[in-house]
């Protein structure tokens, strides 16, 4: 499979085609490598399934968790590991909201925007984080601060509606978040 099919044509035909940027292409990550111990863990994961392809989400999670995003090299590496065409992995990256095509910050703040949290002011929390980190409160999708430390993202229902508003900082849930609590969460991110 030609890797070019899933990445930006690098001015291959300098003319009309390359002038139109492909939205959100996969980033290049020339130094992408997977350490041996991680390979061992992932290979064990693959054995959980009768068909290797089933492991693709788990492998994508592992890559996203380690590098903060999924690059072209990562997609190709996973595809090779699972004996798939890269497009089979790429189509997952564009479908599932938890995978990012651009590098994300060390601390990923997911703020729930769905009804129960919205009724309890999750929009104010999102706004507060954005302003504090110099991001656009009305911006779409995941936004990362200039220093690369923080990513702020509005996400759909996080299943903690009884303790709304709720945010997730990396894997940790913070419930009944107030503006003061939000500041404390940021201070705790070091």
């Amino acid at each position: 499979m030609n890797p070019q099919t899933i990445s930006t044509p690098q001015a291959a035909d300098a003319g009309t085609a390359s002038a139109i940027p492909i939205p959100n292409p996969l980033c290049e990550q020339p130094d992408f490598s997977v350490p041996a111990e991680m390979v061992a863990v992932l290979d064990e994961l693959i054995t959980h399934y009768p068909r290797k392809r089933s492991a693709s989400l788990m492998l994508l999670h592992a890559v996203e968790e380690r590098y903060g995003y999924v690059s072209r090299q990562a997609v190709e590496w996973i595809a090779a590991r699972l004996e798939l065409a890269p497009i089979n992995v790429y189509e997952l990256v564009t479908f599932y909201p938890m995978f990012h095509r651009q590098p994300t910050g060390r601390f990923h703040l997911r703020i729930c925007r769905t009804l129960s949290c919205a009724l309890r002011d999750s929009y104010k929390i999102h706004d507060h984080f954005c302003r504090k980190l110099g991001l656009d409160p009305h911006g779409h999708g995941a936004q990362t601060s200039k220093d690369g430390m923080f990513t702020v993202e509005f996400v759909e229902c996080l299943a903690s509606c009884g303790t709304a508003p709720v945010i997730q900082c990396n894997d940790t849930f913070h419930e009944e978040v107030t503006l003061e609590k939000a500041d404390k969460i940021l201070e705790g991110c070091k």
Partner: protein
Amino acid sequence: MPQEYRQILKYADAPGYTPDVECYLRHGGYQILKKTLEIEPKALPDGKSMSPAEQVRDQVKLSGLRGRGGAGFSCGLKWSFVDRRSGKPIYLICNADESEPGTFKDKQIIHKDPHQLVEGMIISCFANDVHLAYIYIRGEFAEGARILNRALQEAREKNFLGKNILGKGYDLEIHVHRGAGAYICGEETGLIESLEGKRAYPRIKPPYFPAVLGLYMCPTIVNNVETLCAVKHVVDLGPSEYAKIGTPNNTGTRIVSLSGLVKRPGYYEVEVGKVTIRELIYDPIFGGGLRDGRQLKAVIPGGSSSKILKAGERFKLKRKGPDGKDVEQELDMLDLPYDFDSLIAAGSMSGSGAIIVLDDSTDIVAALSNLSEFYAHESCGQCTPCREGSLWMSKALHRMANGQGRKGDADYLLKIADNIPGGRTVCAFGEACSWPVQSCVTKFKDEFVARGTQDEERRAAGSK
């Protein structure tokens, strides 16, 4: 007096109760599994015999247990559809994708009592001759996945899982599989596609009924976390004792997730049908009422996809009187018993057991806009009516919520919403995204029309 009836969450919040296997064993854990594995084949009068697995399936069927995930379909019936003659392996998947807005019950079980789910799953797998099962947990529950993995590892070490479980010759392996933030994975065929490593595009039924052509085109059972836990209690109590909990055709307990603008949002396990919506919202042991000075505006009774109930709405329901005869009764929306059948009779559903309460401070246009944005974001994009329709509705509502409404918007929204469901889409997402719009706009039509009219007049007067 309404009260909680804690069966599944009996120990979850008890002081000192921890999610490890030793604590679970101290509280009688895995005893029901032992009991299940010790069932002897039963001789039937006609000379045939009933295998232990068949007996468990029979118990679940007789108990009247209905699925707790959303559709409320009979669990025993679902199991009875499984193709057992194909010679292919049968898979069981626990649907822990909990992502219906308003729902947060499965998370309590997974985080606080994971072994109960594991035990319920092993029993269910045994009953269905399953040797490989998965827990499909939503991606955001990374901590939940770690807790479950730990629990499964502990269960393996104690030989509750693995080869020759407890020396009874039954083999089973369970693995945790993480989703990645897509709501559509809660739909069972979408979940199966996702577990196969593909985009979660739901499959068309027929022919892809999971019970016949599920995971890897093999017979597959997909059950919700709470349902699988309930199976353990069915086997523990026996079907007739279990059926005494709750009300006829609505047996057992349910964990209700209460959120929105009440004083005490939270999860409450109750006997199905023994508690009314009013009690769940106003009783001090449940929601504790609305915030001071507020009036009820509406209730979303079963997760965001269910049709909204407006305060003051009345419904005529057929109910069994004390003499056992059907009597027609007119009930206020708040007096509906919180069960499967009453809410269906009221034109809505109890879905995943999630109640979202809206008070008079809520802008209904903004609230619906919020939900529509959710559906527009989560539509998998496979079927045009749903992909386009959910987005159009969301755009129109977003416009309305931001002062750019039009007089005709209410009818426009209804027209779109009416053209999505009803067999035009592969899965029930078409219904799920249009029901809230249909019900909100119909029941609060004056507010939607007034909003659009005001906006139009303001624009006509020259101000933005």
